[in-house]
């Protein structure tokens, strides 16, 4: 199994929003997320018993296309299970994600690493805002399988050409004494990249490798909030 790139987390402190964070796998794959909420909601999108959770994605260049809409929908379905939305009905939680790495214009694109970075940045921004109750932290990582059967966790950009299968996995991780396995799968997307096929054991293998690797991402997230190893009694971040 290949080793993943160093994780870079920073809280830029965008001035006009409630929370923001930047997450990167190395410096080649990074995203910036900002969260505002609970704020005023448009009448058309108001929900009577829960908050409306709205996600937008902005690519690095060009106007947002259908791909950005699809990424926003994916991020939304990955993060929605971790948010307790019925505490703030008739409000809006607005998440805007800006990608900081370019995507190739033509040819087959490997965007799973970027999607993982976007999901992680979103989780960090929500935690940074601290205004939305959450069940756990959603952490994501991309996994690929090379021609020879080698499983690469968080493959580097220049190795993505060798991959025959690949995908992104997101897990909701929560600390708790009574939880047997503390990560639950919330988003999976595994497919062949060069027109082959795969079987169930391969995807199960990849998912377990991702589950293992996500622990590292979670640990990095935690340590970015607790400087110097001191324990932080902020209860609203994790609710089990």
């Amino acid at each position, binding site marked *: 199994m290949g080793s993943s790139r160093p994780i870079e987390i920073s809280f830029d402190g965008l001035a006009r929003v409630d929370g923001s964070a930047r997450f990167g796998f190395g410096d080649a794959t990074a995203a910036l997320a900002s969260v505002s909420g609970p704020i005023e909601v448009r009448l058309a999108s108001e929900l009577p018993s829960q908050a409306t959770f709205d996600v937008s994605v902005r690519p690095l260049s060009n106007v947002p296309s259908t791909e950005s809409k*699809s990424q926003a929908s994916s991020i939304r379905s990955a993060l929605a299970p971790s948010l307790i939305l019925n505490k703030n009905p008739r409000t809006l939680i607005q998440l805007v994600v800006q990608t900081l790495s370019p995507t190739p214009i033509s040819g087959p694109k490997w965007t799973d690493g970027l999607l993982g970075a976007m999901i992680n940045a979103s989780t960090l921004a929500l935690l940074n805002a601290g205004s939305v109750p959450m069940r756990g932290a959603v952490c994501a990582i991309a996994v690929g399988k090379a021609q020879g059967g080698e499983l690469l966790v968080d493959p580097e950009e220049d190795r993505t050409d060798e991959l025959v299968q690949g995908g992104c996995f997101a897990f909701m991780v929560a600390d708790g004494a009574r939880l047997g396995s503390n990560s639950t799968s919330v*988003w999976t997307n595994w497919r062949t990249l060069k027109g082959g*096929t795969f079987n169930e054991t391969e995807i199960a293998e990849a998912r377990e490798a991702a589950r293992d690797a996500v622990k590292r991402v979670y640990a990095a997230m935690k340590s970015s909030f607790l400087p110097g190893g001191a324990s932080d009694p902020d209860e609203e971040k994790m609710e089990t």
Partner: protein
Amino acid sequence: MAYAAPIQPTAPTGLSPQENEALQASIFQRLHPRAYLERFLAEGFRPDGRTLEGWRDVSVNTGSISTADGSALVRLGNTTVVCGVKAEIAEPELDAGNRGFLVPNLDLPAMCSPRFKPGPPADDAQVLSDRLNEALIASNILPLESLCIQPNKSVWVLYVDATCINYDGNAFDATLLAMVAALKNTRLPKTTYDELTKRTICSRKAERIPLDIKRTPVSASFGIFDSNRILSDPTAFEEPLLDTTLTVLLDNSTRELISVSQFGLGSASTDALGSCIQAAKKRWGESKDRIQL
């Protein structure tokens, strides 16, 4: 009134007891959709009479649009999707001189369901179009090199446009089937590139050539209700109540997996992905013969 309605204080006159019951049931469905679905699932059935793992009937009709280069009409229960393929000629990209273009698109107009309003494509249509594009790329249905007429000068662009004319849930499966059927039905004219005049000439008389379809992908979609019930092929009534969507893409001839995706929390009790993969293989194993395109 011979029949006393227990729920409503005044029952509508002029209806038979059966009609009255049906009216009350549909009022309950409108006001409390979640409870309505829960009651059915507790008995092991869904509102349309299927079991939890039941599938709706599929019918495919190809070649009905004579002005398109290829076309198909698919009915998945009540969900109806029409797909047409139009071919145009274009210059290829600079760094991919011998590859053509495959541009799939799905339109969900206001006509197919009250939840879609007239105007620019809504989020649902855009997300589905992007997912269909990824599904066609992952399955490698058509090597783009086969769409090349003259390297670096002239290639085919295939616009695969699907329109939903009746939406009853699971547009993804129906549209993928329609797109694949339309591509298999497509016949392109014989073309040559004339170096002298730098023009591409299509022959009107010569017989048209079918596309070089390498693989036929088929898909099976599921939803998870209440974190533990897996419903296959959700209808438009069930879809808003499902927190999670799972889609499995298979190769029609070998039934091997091409892509698996899960959007949302998995099932608390079982391995949702594993059981959905089994169900998908079973589904396309049985009706493989019916979908001969």
